[in-house]
């Protein structure tokens, strides 16, 4: 068996500490704090999704919010139908309240023919359909988009422009389809998810454990995925695409695969977010939210899954505690802006990079002829 170097042992230790910390947190937090932490952990999952596509695949997706939003909407549709208000709209079957507000007078109070698009809601009466779609739809869309982008050999900034346009496009469509999506207001007043006898109330410990265990599993699985052969090939593609191509690898397939995995994680995070926050709205697909995710990853360390995840949790925790003082809310945005500029300029590998070089220095002192070579951030491709 291959002996683990002291560096990867330290890495494993960091992962373990983080996972243990989030699992024992309920012992120290009351309901409200727990709900808030759960929300930040969902952002942490998003951070992992961004790091996977940006740090490992070199794909700067400025539309990650699309997948997050789709996942959120899918499960929110199911939960909307299971809410008490949907059952009290004068029909024996559940009907979302907002659909009736603008319904044609005299139209039948049934999902089949309330308005032109309401039939789309029919399968969402089963909560498992919503949950399934929350995973399948983002992944499927990512596969299609990825196939087009990577087969066409679209690279670099153009991927960012396409993903950015796509998320804004879908956002507008959702806002415009007011009769079936409730437009700007999004889906609110949702029911709670119940699996068997376990009810995932947003303030319950069960929901927290669902989120934190999901995060731990995603973190570990994503990490293992990057260490498989496919993960190695992916990083090689990031560093020099042509060379990998000449070595005979099907470059687009690897890129599509990881693009879809990243979308799947983001979609799953969207679903968890709905459980914790009890709403889904078009703001999930705002450009600024998608870029904010990138900020978390950049500050935490784009090339480190744990770093990006911790970055997301950390930034949001600080933001939440600062936001309690009203005058500091706007000042906090200044700090975020400044932090971002400084991180990009002086800490391109983020906090994780800082920690790594600190550890390297410690190891060097102990073992001056160590063989660990400091990994450096690959030079990003210059403008083509």
């Amino acid at each position: 068996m291959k002996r683990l170097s002291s560096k990867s042992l330290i890495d494993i230790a960091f992962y373990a500490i983080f996972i243990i910390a989030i699992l024992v947190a309920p012992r120290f937090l009351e309901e409200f704090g727990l709900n808030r932490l759960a929300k930040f952990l969902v952002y942490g999952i998003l951070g992992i999704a961004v790091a996977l596509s940006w740090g490992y695949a070199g794909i700067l997706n400025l539309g990650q919010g699309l997948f997050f939003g789709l996942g959120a909407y899918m499960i929110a549709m199911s939960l909307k139908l299971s809410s008490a208000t949907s059952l009290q709209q004068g029909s024996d079957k559940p009907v979302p309240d907002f659909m009736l507000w603008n319904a044609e007078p005299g139209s039948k109070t049934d999902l089949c023919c309330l308005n032109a698009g309401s039939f789309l809601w029919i399968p969402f009466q089963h909560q498992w359909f919503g949950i399934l779609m929350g995973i399948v739809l983002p992944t499927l869309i990512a596969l299609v988009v990825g196939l087009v982008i990577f087969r066409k050999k679209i690279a670099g900034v153009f991927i960012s422009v396409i993903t950015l346009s796509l998320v804004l496009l879908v956002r507008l469509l959702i806002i415009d389809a007011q009769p079936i999506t409730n437009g700007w207001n999004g889906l609110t007043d949702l029911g709670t998810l119940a699996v068997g006898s376990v009810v995932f109330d947003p303030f319950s410990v069960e929901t927290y454990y669902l989120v934190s265990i999901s995060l731990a599993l995603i973190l570990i699985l994503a990490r293992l995925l990057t260490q498989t052969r496919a993960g190695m090939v992916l990083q090689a593609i990031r560093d020099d695409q042509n060379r990998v191509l000449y070595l005979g690898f099907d470059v687009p397939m690897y890129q599509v695969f990881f693009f879809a995995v990243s979308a799947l994680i983001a979609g799953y995070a969207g679903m968890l977010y709905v459980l914790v926050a009890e709403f889904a709205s078009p703001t999930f697909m705002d450009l600024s939210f998608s870029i904010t995710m990138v900020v978390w990853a950049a500050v935490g360390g784009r090339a480190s899954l744990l770093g990006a995840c911790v970055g997301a949790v950390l930034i949001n925790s600080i933001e939440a505690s600062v936001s309690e003082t009203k005058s500091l809310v706007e000042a906090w945005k200044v700090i975020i802006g400044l932090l971002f500029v400084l991180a990009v300029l002086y800490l391109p590998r983020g906090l994780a990079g800082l920690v790594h070089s600190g550890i390297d220095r410690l190891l060097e002192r102990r073992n001056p002829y160590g063989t660990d070579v400091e990994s450096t951030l690959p030079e990003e491709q210059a403008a083509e």
Partner: protein
Amino acid sequence: MLDTIFIGLSVGSILLLVALGLAITYGAMGVINMAHGEMVMIGAYTTVMAAIWLHLGIIWAIPLAFFVTALLGLLIEKFVVRQLYGRLMDTLLATWGIAILLQQAVRLEFGLSFFGLHIAGLGPGLQNVTVPAFLQGTVTIGTAQINSYRLFIIAVTIVMTLLTWFIMHRTSIGMKVRAIIRNPKMAAACGIDVQRVNALTFAFGSGLAGVAGVMMSGFKTVFPDMGTPMVVDGFLVVVVGGVGSLVGSILSAGILGQVDGAVAAVWNDVIARAVVFGFVILTIVIKPEGLFSYKGRR
């Protein structure tokens, strides 16, 4: 019909002013300036401030805004962008941070609002600019009633575009910029001071955005977040037109402006925006190098 075309043209003109700046900075320097939209915002605020503090009308605000935003561009180039040449993705992120900083600077009145001090014309609220009397009202062309402020926008855009074309194609600095667009390393080897030319290019591009901001302030409310959608639109124009191609930017701003205006007239504003995004995605997929691309830099 004609008035729809004119609305499309005036929307397209502002888009063009924003996009021209982006096209030369992106073309020449490979920098994606996400703070470009904030230059539009600052141009608009310059107009507001000029009216309040200097009692200057919208006409005088044009050179003033150009100067202010160009200076700001110069500073951004010197302290941030210059450090990031060759790291294309990172310029996008760093300038996004700058964009937030600029918005907050306006919203918090340079931080003075913390001390209870307020500057008239700044702050988080909405601002308005009064358009001088001779630009209000309509002009009748044929059977159509055309808003004269829209004509003014189109005229200013034509002047600025011609100026840009003249600088790029008839002056020695423009020749240097074009050389850098083609091949920055070779240009440097030929003795062009690439860093200095880049700084000036960036300042000029920012200045154009400032002028676009003045134009916008005349028919839209002015507020700290107004620039963000502009940079997205401007960038879409550049990508559709083909990077580094002035003609491409002009044509694609025209096309996108018309698509937006026409769909909005037939359907609604939201769908019009959606159609524009769809159009851009299709363009990149079918012709990644842009509709009117420029051979070079490859």
